[in-house]
């Protein structure tokens, strides 16, 4: 009997020791909600409709939260993750450029080739090395918490693909690719002869032919990394349409489903064979049957990485995404899942876009509630993308639709407020606000007009991307991305012509011209301010930094053509696209929000102060290079 009691006591001691090892939060808890793009002015205008945010304002605190230069989501969230400015974490845009080629590359992650492979016939089996790695410098704050034994759940953090390695439960957010490796490529299948396009930004349009009421759709998958030729994989989706009714049956890999016109499918699981019967990868997609007669119109979402069997690392621990999917069902893993591309291309109407983006939010809310219920101690971070993506398409024109999204997010905030109670600090933050996007600025065309950029033939202006007709021997500066201008620097750019000694002079002259640039239609300045990275940033990790960062005034933004290095004939034009709201402007034009259920000490908090606040709350010292101060 005594021996039994002793064994029980030892077991109890061991158990409690293990529990202490698992988390040293010592009962401390903190909740941080990241609401991408939540705008302080919109919130202030609609406090009456947003009871939970209003509650936080009245009982806690509400501040404008200063954003990063430039105010782009990957840049801003990287600052939250690392507590550094862009000069520290090294992310300056959605895209960077490779100086050797001046071609755009992802700023967030890169894939690396295997170091050793075994070739068997057409196949190439990787033996070691290879994969995908994050390009963000600095340590994620939850890695630091983890080192101090503090548990955290970091769900859908942007710019966290592949997720930072640690023991925390984390799921990658914005920046997570689809199965083709892009940020999201939809497919649209039609036999409508009026549809002549083959490619649109973010999507492909495929002509199909119905034979005896049946058509075969090829759903594109990833390039086959197991083959020497990297041949793209695909799976078949057979659609059989009813002769007269607006309904169709779909068959793929032994599964069948029926859709009526205007209906979305549930998630469809698919398997791409890499080596037949040996190796395959799994994805999930959704189908929208837009129309059956007289012409077939079918939208297929980007094929998302299947969270139950992810082809790429999307979570830590690796099986976390599987456990989550088992609990709440399959969900969008693609970083930016709202289908703005198809809306912009006129494939989806506004109401269809709203239905799709509502599905993304529904997935998100389901996961949020599940994780919030599970949350016991340590840190809980959850990110919502819907406000941002819907603001891009609805800003200033469809306020009531946008308010619905804000309301849903406000309800989720209410659940977090209830969970936090009085003893758990809660922060609700956004990375930037919003502004109208009325006029598109073709920065490369401006540079050409001002004599900084020269074409090999001045008549060859247009939408051709990637500087097709630029004469680099006569070009001093070029623009790529949404806020960046680069000097064609000798020794850095291939065939660069500006000596290092002249760089500053060129930039100062260019900065003056940019600031003086006026819209001929209004006579007002287009650019609020221009930033020199050495002055704007404290960090010196400027390898990929633009030489000048352009801060547009509200209403103006770099054109889509600028982002990918095109030189259209006009310098400015009206934005006639469905994408009507944006934030890639001067940082002080689009601040974010900071709500808390606690009083805040800081009057003008910055994004990197959030990192310091989280670490401070758990008593974890800041790392070198972190520049923020706690807001509490």
């Amino acid at each position, binding site marked *: 009997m005594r021996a039994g009691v002793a064994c029980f006591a030892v077991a109890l001691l061991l158990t409690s020791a293990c529990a202490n090892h698992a988390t040293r939060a010592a009962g401390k808890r903190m909740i941080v909600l990241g609401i991408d793009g939540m705008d302080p002015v919109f919130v202030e205008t609609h406090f009456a409709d947003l009871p939970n945010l209003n509650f936080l304002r009245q009982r806690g605190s509400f501040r404008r939260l200063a954003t990063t230069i430039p105010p782009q989501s990957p840049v801003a969230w990287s600052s939250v993750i690392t507590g550094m400015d862009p000069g520290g974490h090294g992310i300056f845009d959605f895209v960077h450029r490779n100086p050797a080629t001046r071609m755009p590359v992802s700023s967030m992650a890169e894939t690396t080739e295997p170091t050793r492979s075994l070739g068997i016939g057409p196949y190439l089996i990787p033996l070691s090395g290879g994969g995908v790695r994050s390009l963000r410098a600095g340590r994620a704050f939850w890695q630091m918490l983890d080192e101090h034994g503090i548990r955290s759940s970091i769900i859908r953090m942007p710019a966290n693909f592949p997720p930072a390695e640690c023991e925390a439960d984390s799921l990658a957010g914005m920046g997570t690719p689809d199965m083709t490796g892009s940020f999201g490529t939809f497919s649209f299948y039609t036999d409508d002869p009026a549809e002549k396009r083959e490619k649109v930004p973010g999507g492909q349009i495929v002509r199909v032919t119905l*034979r*005896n*009421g*049946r058509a075969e759709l090829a759903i594109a998958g990833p390039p086959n990394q197991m083959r020497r030729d990297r041949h793209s994989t695909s799976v078949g989706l057979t659609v*059989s*349409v*009813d*002769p*007269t*009714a607006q*309904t*169709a*049956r779909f068959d793929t890999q032994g599964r*069948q*489903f*029926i859709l*009526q016109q205007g209906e979305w499918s549930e998630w469809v699981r698919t398997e791409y064979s890499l080596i037949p019967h040996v190796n395959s990868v799994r994805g999930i997609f959704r189908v929208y049957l837009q129309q059956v007669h007289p012409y077939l119109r079918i939208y297929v979402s980007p094929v998302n990485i299947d969270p139950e069997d992810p082809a790429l690392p999307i979570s830590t621990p690796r099986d976390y995404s599987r456990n989550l999917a088992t609990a709440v069902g399959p969900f969008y893993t693609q970083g930016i899942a709202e289908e703005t591309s198809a809306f912009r291309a006129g494939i989806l109407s506004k109401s269809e876009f709203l239905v799709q983006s509502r599905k993304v939010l529904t997935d998100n809310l389901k996961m949020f509630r599940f994780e919030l219920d599970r949350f016991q101690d340590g840190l809980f971070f959850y990110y919502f993308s819907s406000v941002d993506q819907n603001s891009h398409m609805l800003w200033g024109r469809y306020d009531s639709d946008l308010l619905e999204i804000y309301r849903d997010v406000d309800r989720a905030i209410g659940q977090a407020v209830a969970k936090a109670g009085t003893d758990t600090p809660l922060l609700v933050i956004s990375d930037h606000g919003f502004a109208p996007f009325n006029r598109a600025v073709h920065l490369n065309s401006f540079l050409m007009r001002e004599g900084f950029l020269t074409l090999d033939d001045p008549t060859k202006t247009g939408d051709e991307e990637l500087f097709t007709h630029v004469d680099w021997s006569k070009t001093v500066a070029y623009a790529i991305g949404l806020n960046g201008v680069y000097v064609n620097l000798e020794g850095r750019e291939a065939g660069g012509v500006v000596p290092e000694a002249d760089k500053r002079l060129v930039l100062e002259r260019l900065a003056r011209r940019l600031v003086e640039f006026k819209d001929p239609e209004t006579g007002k300045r287009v650019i609020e301010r221009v930033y020199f990275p050495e002055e704007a940033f404290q960090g010196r990790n400027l390898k990929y930094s633009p030489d000048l960062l352009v801060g547009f005034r509200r209403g103006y933004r770099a054109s889509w053509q600028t982002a990918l290095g095109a030189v259209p004939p006009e310098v400015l034009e009206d934005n006639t696209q469905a994408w009507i709201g944006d934030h890639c402007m001067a940082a002080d034009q689009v601040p974010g929000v900071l709500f808390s259920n606690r009083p805040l000490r800081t009057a003008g908090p910055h994004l990197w102060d959030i990192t310091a606040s989280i670490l401070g709350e758990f008593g974890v010292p800041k790392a070198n290079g972190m520049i923020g101060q706690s807001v509490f």
Partner: protein
Amino acid sequence: MEMLNWFIDSILLVVHVFLSFAPRLVGLTIVAASIGAGMLWVFGRTSDQERMKQVKRRVQASLLELRVFVDEPAISLRAQGRLIAANLNYLALALRPMLWMGVPIALLLIHLEAFYERAPLALAEPALVTMRMTADWIPSAPPPVLIAPSNVTILGPPVRVAASREVSWRILPYSPVSDRLLFRYNGQEVAKWLEAGDRQRYVTGRRVRSRWETILSPGETRMRSDFAEWIDVRYPSADLRIFGFHVNWLAWFLIVSMATALLLKKRLGVVL
């Protein structure tokens, strides 16, 4: 065929009445073990046990020879030859019991599929019902009318698939069902059994018109219809888990039945 199906189903249904309250894995394990024991008994009765004993002794002798005369290539080669011959002899002797058991076991597995391969439809999840029409069907003509039990909703109009002469409906059971779907066409009526809910039960995927196809689609009587060749309900796969891992029911069946036979062979005095 229908009599045979009825006979096998009746036996299995009686067995499953007793097992339906146990978890699916337990039921399958008991069935597999019983069939394994039965197969062993049949093997013992239908095989030439004396000759099998002799052949096995020859195999053992050849193996011993190989081990002892490892340095004598000529003897080793002869021993290997005798080993192959003995093995072929063993396979020939095993052929007769296999022929005796092959057809009954195949039939049993087809019937067991209805218990262990398919699960009833999940509630509140849409499922597809498909009817294959006869060759004289005109796809543009009005489709058959489906009448579902009161606790099953038919979601939207059917899809007439001209290319494969099929008509598919989407149905949604919202409470447990064990009832018939009725299909009316040109004044005729055919029915298909439908199962939905959590409880383990006999689930027939397809009802057919062809006499021969009833062997592969047991559980329901052959359809007497001028317009339909078969009716199929797309049931989900049954979930069989062992220690949290998904396991194919057939793999588990084979493992348990073989293990049972191996465990019981001495007790029943059967040489395998």
